[in-house]
């Protein structure tokens, strides 16, 4: 293949280097800062109440500095014990006899007193499986995926994954091998103890020491004839943590975490030793056992699991740099207020507003997917009215380009793809999406039409939803991920390991779709979505029982499901209810992420207790705003892009340079594949041909992954529309992309196009200044700086001739970060 554009010259490569903006530093390591002198000690819990002898508890000791900072001194504290009632065992306080007493705590020259009580537990029941043994099995890893919790178990012995099904596990232990895992006459010779202590061969190695407390627990349990307990009263109802939030004033600080399980009878148990604690951001914190160490500035969330229950603890490692002075910036709406509130607390100074040129380019790309034309840029920059940004936003929101761009976005999520839908079906579905976007159909109506669709995929294109998600389980997984932001897929086989969703809930939700059938229609490529008259229930894979539909979470005004009617109608009533805690929140978060680069909960389609929002107040306010405005997506976008936060500069200051999650500055993003292709075409004045679509279609208008541009769009991460996950669209840079930009035909042909911008400028007799300014406006949507202009002028007036030099300049600009990124 030959191309009109010659290879880049060294000069143009130099231009690239000069035009590239300075890379952003996303994180900075900061030296630990010593805390201020301690003024007092505080213990948590405020009193130690043991349920009886052998009960073990932990204590946290905080030193409180003058400025109110709390520092974990547990490790260096000295304890004077009431030896008549407690002792230290394995690093914990263990009750030895009923009674009362006090612990005196000393650290850094300060002391405090902690009251102690030990109840008389002589009538307390012995260990049972649910309350005592399952925690041991889970903690020792017996129920983990690589061991007996795997789908097929290990070495003939299978347990439920992470012990989500105690009934199953109990039966497996007691009745497999005809009950030979237990020797009730001599419990120590039970396989259940002999294996993990490696008295007999055990593939999982040594898991228990014979003198350990866990060993003794199991031994006692077998001796007591291995009682099961009560699945209701012995199960944990809640986890409590201490502290509930960790705020470190500098990297290098450590904080212990205590975990307490609460049971239905009101009793508690210190389960710190058996709980699983992990941090969401391993670059910010390190977790070893129950000790959290701050590594860098930033935030993380601890996910704490114990016996199917979860708790989260937000961790913030604050910037210790002295001299922070909050400098208030204008607040355009509640988004700015709520983000500022958190930034101020974290000692993060947000960036100031982006320039008009940056804003215009950014908002055009984000709302319409395309660059502004040069005349539009000139007009906007020349406009001196104070409300020109808002006016431009309204103008863009009302444009056809907005409709095209958001048709593309929804087409991605809904998998509008001729592979699934046939040619005509795909075009019809795209048309339906487009009309929905054009009419600003309320989001709840949009979702209702999709999820309750039936009939011909041609007559009612919304029915195409079920041509992609054809089976009840797939439809449920898609609907919950798309419209609730919840991923249910793990719960298909077992209770969700990182969330509260159970396998039962998975099938209860799938039961809303169990009657949906899809069959061929009477025209090529047509299918009919209908409700099955028979065989329209879903069975639980465990025991084969028919599962009735049940809402994932209770909602006050949700209707009672009548399984004889179209269950989807009930589901959608529940789903789109203003009381549903997920529906409006999920899309508000998703839309917010499109403009700010990440969600308040991120990933946006993985909302779970263990993935909390970075700014819950903001998410709640967005959700409330969206709901009160009748689920109006355009209004939501208008609010977001009118905020100062959205319009902030991408350039950082010393206080926010390491922040990447609190929206303190704009986060540059590489243009999406279609945006990039159209931007190149527009900037270069070239006309790309996309196969099988009308000639005037842009890449943003291309209907699905089966059309367009010789692999360029796929190379730059166009989603293949195979899943409903946002993650299908790739926006990172790669070496093949760079090589394509530098050497590939797309840019080369565009720059050298006979009808392209450079050719037209030269033929029109444009001056050097006009050429340079036009190329900057066409690519970066701004005028060149003086230095840039001088450099470009030197190149244009060089010995190589104006045309190749202008082509060099355009090529270099197209390869600059300023062009490739939305910033």
């Amino acid at each position: 293949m030959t191309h009109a554009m010659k290879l880049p010259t060294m000069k143009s490569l130099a231009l690239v280097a000069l035009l590239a903006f300075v890379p952003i530093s996303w994180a900075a390591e900061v030296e630990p800062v010593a805390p201020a002198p301690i003024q007092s000690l505080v213990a948590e819990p405020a009193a130690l109440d043991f349920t009886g002898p052998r009960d073990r508890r932990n204590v946290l000791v905080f030193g409180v500095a003058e400025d109110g900072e709390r520092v974990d001194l547990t490790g260096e504290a000295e304890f004077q014990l009431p030896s008549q009632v407690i002792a230290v065992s394995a690093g914990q306080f263990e009750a030895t006899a009923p009674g009362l007493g006090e612990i005196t705590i000393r650290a850094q020259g300060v002391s405090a007193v902690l009251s102690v009580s030990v109840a008389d537990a002589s009538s307390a029941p012995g260990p049972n499986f649910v309350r005592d043994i399952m925690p041991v099995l889970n903690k020792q890893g017996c129920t983990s995926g690589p061991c007996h919790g795997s789908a097929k178990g290990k070495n003939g012995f299978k347990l439920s994954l992470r012990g989500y099904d105690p009934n199953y596990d109990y039966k497996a232990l007691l009745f497999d091998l005809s009950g030979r895992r237990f020797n009730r006459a001599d419990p120590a010779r039970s396989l259940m103890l002999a294996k993990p202590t490696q008295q007999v061969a055990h593939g999982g190695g040594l898991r228990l020491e014979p003198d350990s407390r866990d060993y003794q627990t199991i031994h006692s349990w077998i001796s007591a004839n291995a009682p099961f307990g009560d699945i209701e009263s012995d199960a944990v109802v809640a986890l409590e943590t201490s502290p509930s939030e960790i705020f470190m004033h500098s990297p290098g600080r450590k904080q212990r975490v205590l975990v307490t399980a609460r049971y239905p009878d009101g009793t508690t148990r210190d389960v710190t030793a058996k709980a699983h604690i992990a941090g969401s951001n391993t670059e910010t914190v390190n977790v070893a056992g129950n000790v959290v160490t701050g590594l860098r500035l930033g935030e993380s969330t601890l996910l704490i699991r114990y016996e199917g229950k979860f708790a989260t603890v937000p961790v913030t490692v604050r910037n210790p740099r002295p001299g922070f002075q909050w400098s208030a910036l204008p607040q355009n709406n509640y988004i700015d207020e709520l983000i500022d509130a958190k930034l101020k607390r974290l000692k993060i100074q947000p960036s100031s507003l982006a320039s008009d040129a940056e804003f215009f380019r950014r908002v055009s790309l984000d709302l319409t997917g395309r660059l502004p034309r040069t005349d539009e840029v000139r007009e906007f920059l020349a406009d001196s009215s104070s409300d020109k940004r808002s006016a431009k936003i309204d103008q863009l929101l009302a444009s056809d380009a907005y409709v095209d761009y958001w048709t593309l976005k929804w087409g991605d999520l809904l998998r509008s793809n001729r592979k699934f839908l046939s040619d005509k079906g795909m075009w019809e579905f795209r048309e339906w999406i487009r009309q929905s976007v054009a009419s600003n159909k309320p989001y709840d109506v949009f979702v209702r039409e999709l999820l309750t669709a039936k009939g011909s995929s041609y007559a009612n294109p919304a029915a195409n939803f079920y041509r992609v998600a054809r089976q009840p389980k797939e439809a449920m997984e898609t609907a919950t991920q798309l419209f609730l932001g919840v991923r249910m897929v793990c719960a298909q086989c077992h209770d969700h390991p990182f969330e509260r969703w159970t396998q039962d809930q998975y099938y209860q939700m799938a039961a809303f779709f169990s009657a949906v059938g899809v069959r061929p229609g009477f025209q090529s490529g047509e299918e009919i979505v209908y409700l099955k008259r028979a065989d329209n229930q879903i069975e639980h894979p465990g025991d084969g029982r028919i599962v009735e539909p049940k809402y994932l979470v209770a909602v006050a005004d949700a209707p009672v499901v009548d399984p004889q009617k179209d269950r989807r109608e009930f589901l959608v009533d529940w789903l789109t209810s203003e009381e549903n805690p997920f529906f409006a929140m999920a899309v508000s978060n998703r839309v917010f992420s499109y403009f700010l680069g990440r969600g308040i909960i991120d990933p946006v389609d993985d909302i779970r207790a263990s993935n909390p929002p970075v700014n819950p107040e903001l998410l709640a306010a967005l959700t409330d705003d969206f709901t009160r405005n009748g689920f109006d997506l355009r209004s939501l976008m208008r609010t977001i892009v009118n905020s100062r936060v959205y319009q902030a500069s991408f350039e950082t200051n010393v206080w926010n340079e390491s922040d990447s999650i609190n929206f303190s500055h704009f986060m540059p993003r590489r243009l999406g594949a279609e945006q990039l292709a159209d931007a190149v075409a527009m900037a270069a004045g070239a006309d790309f041909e996309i196969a099988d679509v009308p000639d005037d279609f842009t890449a943003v208008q291309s209907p699905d992954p089966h059309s367009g541009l010789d692999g360029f769009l796929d190379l730059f991460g166009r989603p293949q529309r195979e899943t409903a996950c946002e993650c299908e669209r790739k926006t990172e840079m790669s070496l093949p992309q760079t090589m394509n930009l530098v050497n590939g035909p797309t840019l080369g042909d565009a720059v050298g196009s006979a009808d392209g911008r450079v050719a037209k400028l030269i033929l029109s007799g444009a001056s050097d200044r006009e050429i340079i300014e036009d190329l900057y406006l066409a690519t970066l949507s701004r005028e060149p700086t003086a230095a840039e202009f001088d450099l470009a002028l030197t190149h244009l007036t060089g010995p190589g001739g104006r045309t190749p030099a202008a082509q060099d300049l355009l090529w270099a600009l197209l390869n600059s970060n300023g062009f490739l990124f939305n910033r």
Partner: protein
Amino acid sequence: MTVLRLLLAVLFSAVALSAAEPVLTRVDPVGAQRGTAFRLDLYGNNISDAAVLRTTLPGSVTPLIAARAMKGPALSFLVELPADAAIGLYPLRLEAPGGLSNLILFSVGEFPDVSETDEPNDTPETAQSLDLPTTVNGRLKGSDRDVYRFNASAGEQLVLEVEARRAGSAVDPVLRILDAQGDQLAVNNDAPTLGLDARIAFRAPSAGVYYAVVHDARFSKQDADSYRLKIGDFDFAEGFFPLGGPRGKTVSVDWFGGSLKRPTSSPVDLSQVEEGLAWTTIHTPGRPGALPSTFVVSDHEEELENGRRRLTPGRVLNGRIGDSGEVDRYQLAVEPGQSWRLSLDAATLGSSQLYPLLSVFHKDELLARSGDEIPEKRTTSLEENTLVSRDPFILLDVPDGVNELTLVVEDLVDRGGPNFGYRLLADQGRPDFTLSLSTPEVSIPVGGVAHLNVSAVRRGFSGPIKLFAEGLPDGVTTEGGHLSALFNTKDSVGVAGAATLALRAAKNADLRAFPLTVWGEAVLPDGGKIRRRASAPGLVTPVRSRPGIRGRELPARADWLSAELPARVAAAHPARIVLDGPAQVRIVKGTEYPLRWKLESSDPSIKALTKFRLVTPGARETTFSPRDPEAEWDGAAYVKYLRTTMGGPAQTFDAVLTAQARIAGVNETLASPMITIQVVDGFSLAPAHESVTVSQGAEFDLIGKIDRDSAFPNPIGVSVGDLPKGVSCNAPSPTMSSTFRLDCQTEPDAEIGIHEILLTAASTMAGRGEGKNVPYQVDPVAVALALVEADQP
């Protein structure tokens, strides 16, 4: 060589090369206003001056002497249409020495015609202006969009309609109306009763400019890419009822919806509909402009629903789901053991919006249902790979204790309305099948063969079907036409099968056209015979599909055109494939057979045989390999191996070798004479007795014959299985003998009773790999063994 001889040689060569079938690629215009005169230009390939236009166009059609321009039309005609010509579609076909051309439909309309001007006309800025009323004859070239500008006064009523797929175009049109600002006011893709064609009834909201936009629904590139956009004020209906009537009678049809202010009745005379034709066309009452609709013609008595709740066997009931969620129930008196065929026609007729669901109950018990869930089989495809549904059909054997059935008709998605009609027929009958031709016309070269492809839909009949033709002139004979029995007979409802019937014209056959009918005949399990006529497609316009997408596009058809298949004995073809071997082949299952053939050509320049294909439409459960399209040349002939599997059924089917050659600059597919292949078991068992009676403690023999095919070379062993307790037989060594004998004995306490034992013959034969012998086994044969007490004889 003299000048005269040279001239003769050139002439002969020209005749020989022009003998290929004519192909019409397009006509211009594709329609015209009645009462006007116009020039009709035909374009295509292999069209000589000797070609004659065959058409039913009213008025005069006069050949013109065409200017010999490089890219001009092949033929031109002056056509004068009378003012009272019926609005509708008229076939155009060329008959030439090389045979019959494909058929193109010409539309006669009500409004003045204009042609689409030169592209681009893709945007409102470049739109073509129209004066109303009018019809635009346009083409959509790939991802083309055609935009037309027209003026309308405030409140003006207009109907915009596109004729495309109904007129045999591959275009699936979408119609949009934009206002002067380019904002879309209305869009239609598929209009009721128009199939894939589009229509919008438009009331202009204000006086001014509007735009009509036409494009293909898939922006696809098609060869047959024409359309006609009508814009005017004419009457149309959104439906009619009933959807059909009995041949020979006059039926009152109610029209409703659309521009009709109230339902209007009109009589439909079915007395002149030719025998065998299942369709006629009917015209919407009122102001003319709409194309006629297709109306079913049956050979049954018919009745209207009219509150009727009991079905009369053998009589078509014309019913309608009048409202959303409505369910129609009918009682049918039956007797246990009877076999009933229950068929319901609706959506596939094109005139009903109903997605029919037919259920059969006895009291509250569901006995059968058709129209909802689709088994994971090919049972629902009209054609393989198209994934298109049929209307419901149920073959029901009445269970014991059942004397009345309730048939329930409903819409699959609970809709209803005046245009949700259906035709329900219950008749007692034997297993049945239907046949349809996929070939719209056939040209048989003198001294050569042509092939007709016939597809079958089984309605309970699972046996073999033999095709034959009626109306053959002297010198034309048939070959092949074998449609194999189903291997798995439980799939005998709805399974599509295919067969090829070859027509051979003798070297001295007269060149002439003739109407042909194709039939299929089969022998039922009770020994009776059944004959079914293959329906003709009228027209087949291929519609291109994109590779890698779901399903395949159905071709455009015009089943309403004729029940007969146009045929012609044509001039000899310059090239043909001849077999280098017998046309009747007998193969032992599991073996391979070399098919050998050669090219014969009157023109030495024709050599370029490229890709070969073995077409075996009637074969089932048999594989052929290699699938490599290239054949071997062994120095005397091309060779391709036909391989059968041991697991396939014994069957007879037809095979055709096809190959491509470039003749006179055009790629043509040549076909060989039919090869009829009989696949037989290598051997089979024939026990001397179907039952044997033996006393407890006695000895007995099992004897019989081994029918060995002469081509099967190896020793065969016979064994017996499923023996009752206390009975044993020896298993003699495999033998080349044509008889077998097993010595058996019974214990004194062997279980008394009648036991079915299975005689099995097994052997080995050479496998595909070198030195490998693989087991070869045929279906076991059952023998009844009656064990009686010792003191009984």
